[in-house]
């Protein structure tokens, strides 16, 4: 236990050092991709908590990201930018002059998304499986439509532009790290075990004295709040948001990361978020023309998504439960692995 704590601290320090190095060595384009990966870590963990750990088939993530993104943006944009952005209809006076520091806006984004999650969860979490999926998906679309139609608050379909770019590598990966630590502690706690019990067998969990509805709600609200925080960071990173950004496709992207990494695996989601985000960008070369000297491959727009889907298919074919399943990478396993390799090497040397 003591050893692990030390290792954790060393790992976190090493990670912070890595951030320093990446921050100065990466060009702006690569840095942006790396930051995007950090946001996907937050979004993925939120979705994994609900779908992977608690076993609730929820497809409403994009809606809660939207709520977080709008909350974060409206609370950080300057009054002047708001006035310029809302040129069709002026913004409602309450929001017009409000401008808060970024961290407060992030917390607010999480709280608002969590609160709306609570309101939607109350009726929806009484449903199960496919019905729950359809209901959450429906509510996610309703959120999007409401946002499109609240002209004086959200600027409707035009969306918000000129969102202050506070979300740098420190904010994004700092929050991301905090969320990872939070998730590890949550899952390790008695509550985390109860979430898994609900996933495994609801009836048995209830017979063990677990208030199913309360714990489902807890998991769902935390997942929604994380989606909100991720959404706010995303808005700040890309600088402009509109309702179209938060279609179902976005939920699908996050779900894909979670499934690939392994439902019910924190380390799986973190790895998968980074690998998938980076890979999608690197596969971009497939879309443009390539000259290999002896042969010229014409660029096919969309080819990267085809290749990406193929890779996905192959992974799912061989690892049905994602790369990590519901397992975690722990220090114990790393040491085990190291010892096994060491043994192999000595055996080879002696023979």
């Amino acid at each position, binding site marked *: 236990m003591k050893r692990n704590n030390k290792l954790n601290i060393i790992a976190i320090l090493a990670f912070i050092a890595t951030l320093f190095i990446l921050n100065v060595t990466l060009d702006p384009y690569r840095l942006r991709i790396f930051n995007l990966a950090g946001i996907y870590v937050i979004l993925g963990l939120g979705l994994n908590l609900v779908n992977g750990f608690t076993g609730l088939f929820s497809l409403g993530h994009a809606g809660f990201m939207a709520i977080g993104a709008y909350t974060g943006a409206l609370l950080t944009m300057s009054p002047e930018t708001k006035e310029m952005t809302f040129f069709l209809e002026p913004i409602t006076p309450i929001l017009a002059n409000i401008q808060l520091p970024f961290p407060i806006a992030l917390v607010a984004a999480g709280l608002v998304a969590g609160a709306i999650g609570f309101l939607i969860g109350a009726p929806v979490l009484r449903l199960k499986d496919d019905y729950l999926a359809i209901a959450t998906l429906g509510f996610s679309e309703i959120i999007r439509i409401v946002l499109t139609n609240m002209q004086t608050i959200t600027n409707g379909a035009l969306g918000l532009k000129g969102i202050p770019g506070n979300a740098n590598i420190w904010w994004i990966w700092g929050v991301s790290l905090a969320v990872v630590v939070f998730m590890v502690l*949550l899952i390790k706690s008695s509550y985390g*075990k*109860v979430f*898994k019990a609900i996933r495994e*067998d609801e*009836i*048995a969990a*209830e*017979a063990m004295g677990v208030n*199913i509805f309360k714990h489902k709600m807890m998991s769902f609200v935390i997942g929604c709040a994380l989606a909100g925080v991720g959404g706010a960071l995303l808005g700040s990173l890309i600088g402009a948001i509109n309702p179209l950004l938060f279609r179902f496709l976005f939920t699908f992207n996050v779900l894909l990361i979670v499934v690939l990494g392994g439902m019910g695996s924190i380390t799986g989601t973190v790895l998968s978020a980074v690998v998938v985000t980076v890979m999608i960008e690197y596969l971009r070369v497939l879309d443009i023309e390539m000259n290999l000297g002896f042969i010229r491959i014409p660029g096919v727009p969309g080819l990267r998504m085809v290749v990406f889907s193929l890779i996905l298919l192959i992974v799912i074919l061989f690892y049905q439960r994602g790369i990590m399943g519901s397992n975690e990478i722990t220090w114990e396993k790393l040491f085990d692995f190291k010892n096994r390799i060491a043994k192999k090497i000595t055996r080879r040397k002696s023979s």
Partner: protein
Amino acid sequence: MTIFRTENLTKKFGGLVAVSNLNIKIEKGQIIGLIGPNGAGKTTAFNMITGVYKPTEGNVVFGENKVTGMKPHKITERGIARTFQNIRLFKELSVLDNVLIANHMRLKSNVFSSIIRTPDYVRKEKAIKEKSINLLRELGLEDVKDEKSFSLPYGKQRRLEIARALATDPQLLLLDEPAAGMNPQESHELMVFIREIRDKFDLTILLIEHHMKVIMGVCESIYVLDYGVTIANGTPGEIQNNQKVIEAYLGVE
């Protein structure tokens, strides 16, 4: 002292009366049997008692209070625990975790103190872990505490279900066909074991069994259901010689 009783407990599924006017009365410390052929309504009776089904009519009284129609987790909190006929373990979780989860409701720690691990939470968590490991030791499951529960052999899975129910600190334990799938020797051992836990944990037990023979030796009193109707009630000796019971089991019209 009567610890538990049902009053005209009835459950209808559409036109089917699965249980009709069931009146069970249990004194503290007794082991009572509930037997009957397939589809007699035994499990349905359990489901009504534990809040899984709402009774169509009648009442469940535990201690001094009516618990009719309460949510299952509330009933467990009051002190009635159960096992399931078709084993319902948390398959992917370890044996120890299965038992720890049954302690959650008595933990009384909110989610924030659990996450930041306040000294109070850490202390409670440690106490619960110790208690659970002791329980597993007493039931002979300590050596497999870190195995995933689905990987246990059948008999141990059954025993883990009982351990998990005991972990909720019940006064009344309901066992739904705990000997299902066991040979006569194993069944006999199980019955001895049930009597042991009754004494050790100061329990009262209501036990469903399909075969009369298995529980003859352990039960003080037996209720026999057939097509939802209580056709007999008495000591094992009385039941064994009851004409109606013999007919029900032999399928005589």
